[in-house]
């Protein structure tokens, strides 16, 4: 590596950082003002690229087609953002904060299918940017002029946003809302309008970023998910709500990635480390390190610890389940135990899936509902359990032992990751869980010799005694039933109350002598253990596993199931898992566009039952009882 090549790579890193910043800037603006974790931001970015491509198709490759397309994409996507905000998100601001995540996930599914229907499946290669199609010689290397343009665009947008925030009335309102939400009402700001405007601005930035990506990448259906995790990472590393922080974070991550590529394979005392392979997780490693040192990101503000939680969902009185709940649970279990006699084997397979996912969701609900700690990386524990069981089994352990290895492996992971995570709070905590999950994922993905790499491991079937689907179903019913009961029980014990107390008022809990972090750490360990058990049951029911067992979509599934079921409802995980599984299974068979319909179904549930299906049922029964 020469100095010239290093400098050339730094330029590449800067260009990458610039486009990353554009996406993250919109995300952080939206979060700062509305506290919405906008999972659909990547979809808006993707739409930007497609709209720009269409403009070029209509108006040609010249400046009008391309630069007009960039402008058009910005405006169109801003309008779509405003539409999503005013039609959807506005209706659920009062609901638990993370419910918006489920809603925006529904939007992701719908946009993905609409894009497929509108633009087709094939990648759409756009033109090179008009006026910036060539190269110039820098450091003895051909450097695309478009890269240089991008390097300039990032700081320009930063300056523009800075001017907007500091010099305009609109900006003052945004800053007021970001720093202190109570101020919005006090200053006589029209909150609804401000939120729509900010959402449109953020969406427009995503559209701009997508359009500007077109000369570098064909418009394709994978753009949404490819960018969203990275954009979240930049937002969090920079400090939520901080535009300048997002810029610094984008620089940091862009440069680290470029350096990974340039360093290549390096020998350290006999060990060869292929740095390019690290690009798979570089941003998550950076995030884990930054958050370990700075719990609020580079430029984020520490949150003020409230005397009691302001989250509406956490202020609702939770009654311990009574005899009726117990009787209902037992009756349900008895009915479920009869399922194998109905003769439909597939029904058993679905029911097994639902039970396994219910345990997984319940473990997350324990952490998220009971503990107030959202985990965006809960798949890590599910996957650790699955891999723990699979590896033990592959190394000759009998099934019983392998299944015991599942919660054990997940427990170890949860204890290690939890120790770091409980030092943070809110979205920072959630994102650190995601970072750990991605690091575990990348290890499973890369460590061919042990984990089977991207292919994973196969041939993990239950012992002959349980090989029959009916027997395995009863086995899962017993274990999952016990696990669900145990989680429900734990919530009723002093530990469960201490955990909920720490969620309700950390200040009070500490003043009573409760070690909040230790309590939360224990909750991590418990949630991880049960998620691991679910992973173990999962792998033996499917016979195989691959890294997708602990990838982001599985974590998102868990979140969606918990939110659909209800954050506080005791039956929530079971209801959420059942709704999610049955919807996905039924819709996938009914229509080609099942993703969009699933997304719409999620939106419908979120709008009609913002406290989840479990919450809605509870309210219904409470009304009936009265």
């Amino acid at each position, binding site marked *: 590596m020469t100095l010239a090549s290093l400098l050339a790579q730094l330029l590449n890193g800067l260009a990458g950082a610039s486009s990353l910043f554009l996406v993250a800037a919109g995300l952080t603006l939206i979060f700062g003002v509305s506290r919405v974790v906008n999972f659909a931001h990547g979809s808006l970015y993707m739409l930007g690229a497609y709209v720009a491509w269409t403009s070029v198709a209509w108006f040609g490759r010249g400046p009008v087609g391309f630069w007009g397309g960039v402008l058009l994409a910005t405006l169109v996507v801003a309008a779509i953002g405003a539409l999503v905000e005013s039609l959807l998100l506005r209706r659920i601001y009062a609901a638990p904060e993370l419910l918006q995540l489920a809603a925006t996930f529904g939007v992701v599914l719908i946009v993905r299918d609409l894009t497929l229907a509108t633009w087709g499946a094939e990648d759409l290669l756009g033109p090179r940017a008009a006026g910036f199609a060539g190269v110039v010689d820098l450091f003895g290397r051909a450097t695309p002029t478009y890269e240089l343009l991008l390097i300039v665009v990032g700081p320009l947008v930063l300056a523009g946003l800075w001017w907007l925030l500091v010099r305009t009335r609109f900006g003052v309102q945004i800053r007021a809302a970001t720093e202190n939400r109570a101020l919005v009402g006090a200053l006589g700001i029209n909150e609804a309008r401000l939120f729509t405007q900010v959402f449109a601005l953020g969406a427009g930035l995503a559209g701009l970023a997508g359009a500007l990506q077109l000369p570098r990448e064909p418009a394709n259906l994978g753009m949404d998910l490819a960018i969203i995790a990275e954009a979240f990472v930049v937002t969090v590393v920079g400090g939520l709500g901080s535009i300048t922080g997002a810029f610094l974070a984008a620089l940091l991550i862009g440069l680290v990635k470029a350096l990974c590529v340039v360093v290549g394979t390096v020998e350290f005392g006999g060990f060869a480390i292929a740095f390019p392979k690290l690009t798979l997780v570089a941003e998550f490693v950076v995030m884990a390190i930054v958050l370990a040192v700075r719990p609020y990101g580079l430029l984020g503000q520490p949150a003020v610890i409230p*005397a009691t939680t302001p989250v509406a969902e956490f*202020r609702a*009185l939770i009654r311990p389940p009574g005899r009726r709940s117990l009787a209902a649970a037992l009756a349900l279990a008895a009915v479920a135990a009869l399922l194998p006699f109905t003769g439909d084997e597939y029904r058993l397979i679905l029911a097994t899936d639902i039970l396994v996912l219910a345990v997984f969701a319940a473990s997350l609900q324990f952490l998220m509902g009971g503990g107030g700690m959202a985990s965006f990386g809960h798949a890590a524990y599910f996957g650790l359990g699955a891999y723990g069981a699979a590896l033990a089994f592959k190394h000759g352990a009998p099934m019983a032992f392998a299944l015991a290895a599942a919660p054990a492996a997940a427990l170890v992971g949860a204890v290690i990751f939890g120790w770091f995570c409980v030092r943070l709070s809110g979205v920072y905590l959630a994102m650190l869980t995601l970072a750990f999950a991605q690091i575990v994922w990348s290890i499973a993905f890369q460590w061919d010799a042990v984990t089977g790499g991207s292919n994973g491991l196969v041939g993990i079937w239950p012992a002959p005694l349980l090989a029959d689907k009916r027997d395995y179903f009863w086995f899962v019913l017993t274990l999952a039933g016990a696990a669900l009961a145990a989680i429900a029980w734990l919530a*009723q014990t*002093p530990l469960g109350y201490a955990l909920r107390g720490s969620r*309700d008022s950390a200040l009070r809990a500490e003043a009573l*002598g409760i070690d909040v972090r230790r309590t939360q750490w224990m909750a991590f360990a418990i949630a991880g253990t049960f998620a691991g058990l679910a992973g173990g049951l999962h792998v033996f029911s499917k016979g195989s596993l691959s890294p997708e067992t602990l990838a982001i979509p599985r974590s998102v599934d868990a979140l969606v199931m918990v939110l659909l079921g209800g954050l*506080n409802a005791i039956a929530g995980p079971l209801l959420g898992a059942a709704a999610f599984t049955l919807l996905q299974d039924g819709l996938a068979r009914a229509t080609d566009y099942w993703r969009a319909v699933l997304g719409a179904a999620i939106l419908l549930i979120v709008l009609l039952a913002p406290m989840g299906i479990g919450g809605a049922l509870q309210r219904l029964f409470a009304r009936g009882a009265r």
Partner: protein
Amino acid sequence: MTEPLLAVTGLRKAFGGVAAVDDVSFSVAAGEIVALIGPNGAGKSTCFNLINGQLAPDAGSVRLGGTAIGGAAPRAIARLGVGRTFQVAATFASMTVRENVQLALLAHAGAQHQIGRRATTALAAEADALLEQVRMARFADQGCATLAYGDAKRVELALALANAPRLLLMDEPTAGMSPNSRNRMMQLAADLARQTRVAVLFTEHDMDVVFGHADRVIVLDRGRIIAEGPPAAIRNEPRVRAVYLGDDEA
């Protein structure tokens, strides 16, 4: 002579170069009720947070019954017998009033991490007795989030007392209440404290409450103690009147 229950010596804490608490020394004896007063920004809350462990002092010592507690974690200080109420009542919103107290009692018993029993059946009688003491028994089954403000403050007092404290720190115990309930609230706290010989240190804006219930008053201004003495003496202290009471009495 035995050491006082709480002894604060040379306490100092600065934020960004500005001393919020500067060389503050005082003591509180068991069973004594002491008010810490001063205008906004005088350093009362900082003082509280230094004693209670939410902040670590830059210099000076805090001793509780002869044990140095300066810089220890709030939970450790709580375990040594310091109860605390906050300016904004800090209670567990998702629990009933009784469950709030039960959790406090469980924590006091060191049982907060048990998993072998239900929290709702633990120490119920003791919890009800405490609620009786703060006149909140009839709200025992109500959710804490739905309580009237003054009632939440009573619950908080019960939570602080569940710790069987030797020292009770009350940060503006009557803030946000009507004048009538202020006196009732403070009377309640003072009675309970005297019965159990708990030392009380409280801050308060309402001078009627201060002069009506405190045995002794300490006046802070810009981080320093400018006067200390029985209520009657403080009422007539010119320096106090100048910096603090001036507008009220003139």
